[in-house]
């Protein structure tokens, strides 16, 4: 399924950036303000190998909710986002794991490029991710947590696609975040070891990558509210030793409703 998912997004991006992108339209967000609040839901595919729990790779599907806000203001793009959900994972031999997660991030970026087609923002972002896994069959060590927070550069890029399907102002956007410094906390509720991990790590022992791309399209012709359809990939790798070794990927397809709460844009173009 993930192969299909990737190619779907690939084709979508190709079309949007290279064909429809030629249709220039509203290139606002330069000066003035534009604020949105977002709320929505998402479906996930997740794969996790937590070697504190077991050597096996557990994968499966789940869903979640998300919300937040983003704004364009004085050539800055800032965004706050939180999401959380549940996934039902199984090992290759169908040992069941329940995974719940919560992700919070804040992005504060500055306009580094403006053209008639694209806006690119670069700046720091900070993120916190908590994941909890319960594999009942593993009894004493069935309950495992990992909490990670990191700070690093992020990129926000967007381009106007102009009007499509009788609706004006479609936008294609993408976000990328790579923490270079992170804090890892692995509390241990598994009985045998009671060994917790608290560590600051530079990229290498802890690798986190988040990438999201999607479309923003007008909800109607009479107001500035928007819909957002997106694909997100989150990757987490942490290795301190054979036991404290975690690799996890989460692919999400989401739908959001964006409420425009403030708009005073002035086009410079």
């Amino acid at each position, binding site marked *: 399924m*993930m*192969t299909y*998912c*990737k190619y779907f*997004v*690939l084709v979508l*991006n*190709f079309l949007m*950036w*290279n064909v429809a992108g030629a249709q220039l339209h509203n290139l606002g967000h330069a000066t003035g303000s534009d604020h949105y609040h977002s709320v929505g839901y998402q479906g996930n595919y997740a*794969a996790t*190998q937590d*070697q504190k*729990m*077991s*050597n*096996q*790779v557990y994968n499966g599907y789940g869903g979640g909710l998300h919300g937040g806000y983003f704004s364009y203001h004085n050539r800055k793009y800032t965004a706050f986002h939180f999401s959380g959900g549940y996934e039902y994972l199984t*090992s*290759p*031999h*169908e*040992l069941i794991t329940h995974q719940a997660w919560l992700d919070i991030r804040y992005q504060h970026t500055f306009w580094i*490029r403006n053209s008639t087609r*694209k806006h*690119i923002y670069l700046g720091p972002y900070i993120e916190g991710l908590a994941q909890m896994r319960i*594999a009942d*069959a*593993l*009894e*004493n*060590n*069935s309950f495992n947590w990992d909490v990670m927070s990191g700070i690093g550069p992020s990129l926000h*890029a967007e*381009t106007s696609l102009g009007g499509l399907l009788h609706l004006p102002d479609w936008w294609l956007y*993408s976000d*990328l975040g790579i923490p270079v410094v992170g804090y890892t906390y692995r509390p241990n509720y*598994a*009985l*045998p*070891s*009671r*060994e917790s991990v608290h560590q600051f790590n530079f990229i290498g022992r802890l690798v986190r990558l988040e*990438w999201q*791309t999607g479309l923003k399209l007008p909800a109607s012709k009479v107001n500035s509210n928007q819909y957002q359809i997106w694909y997100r*990939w989150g*990757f987490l*790798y942490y290795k301190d030793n*054979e*036991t404290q*070794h975690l*690799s*996890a*990927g989460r*692919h999400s397809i989401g739908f959001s409703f964006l409420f425009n709460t403030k708009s005073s844009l002035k086009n410079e173009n």
Partner: protein
Amino acid sequence: MKINTGFILLIIIILSGCETIAFDEYQNTSPKAIFDEAWTFADHYYSFFDVKGVDWDSVYGAYEPVLHPDMNSIELFDLLGGMFDLLKDGHVNLRSGFDWSRYWQWYLGAPENFDYAVIDRHYFQDRQRFIGPFQAILFDSIAYAYLGSFSSEFSDSQLDLMMRSFRDSKGVIIDVRNNGGGSASLAEKLAARFTDKVVTVGKTRFKNGPGAGEFSEWEDVQLEPYKNDSDSEVIYTKPVVVLMNRKSYSATNSFIQYMNELENVTLIGDRSGGGAGTPKYTELANGWILRLSSTQFVTPRGDQIEQGIFPDIKVNITEKDKRENKDGILEYALNYLR
């Protein structure tokens, strides 16, 4: 410099989903791979090689040559089960869909020393009170409570109720014979009702590496008395007897050790079954679940209790007791407290 965002996106899309690259490969289900995974897990986490006098590298050398690529699941399971039997540990099990390996010799060769039917028909006689998982009764001035497992939850209020019912007694008998264990926190919760001060009841450490001596630092285990400022009757500090036998195992063994460090407690019966290591579990690549002891819990003086705790007064149920439908261990405890 022109930033080709579309190109960057293309690269990321191609890379996305590549988390599988970061996964260690543990999908090989050949007999050799499963054997190595199980052996390595034990090598890394099993905590009693020294106590049991087992050289795990030699075990590998003895068992690995027996492997052959064509062996079926049952043959492999039996080979691994035999290998783990060398650890003589009731907390070491390999579970598959068709069997689970176990070592039960720690109690099979010992006297039974308990017959619930005798307790039920000749002592309780349908007069006991069920307070959560406890069955409690007063024999004149001696209170008696039987607990068959530490797997069933009991609340503070249930313990309050039981302790209040004991308040006028001369002594209490807590019978944990044939109690195979369960939750160590429940064992601690019960023991906390029999002391009014903090007591160091042992030390613990966990195995954290493949070397024979790779353990965490020792940590004291302390028993804190249950606190209820409004009601001191929920703590019992008069004489207490704990009845035990070889099937008093795992969390029950811990409970006995907690009680053994209290001044007002006497242990009566047979040696406990042991099982002082908290098990760690893993799923092998073929879906079998392996568990094994991964910690050590010793007395404050450093004595191992993995192979059981000896009673203060050793008593066995005799053939004469059985013929007369008496529980000789319980009778001894009743007389002891009277």
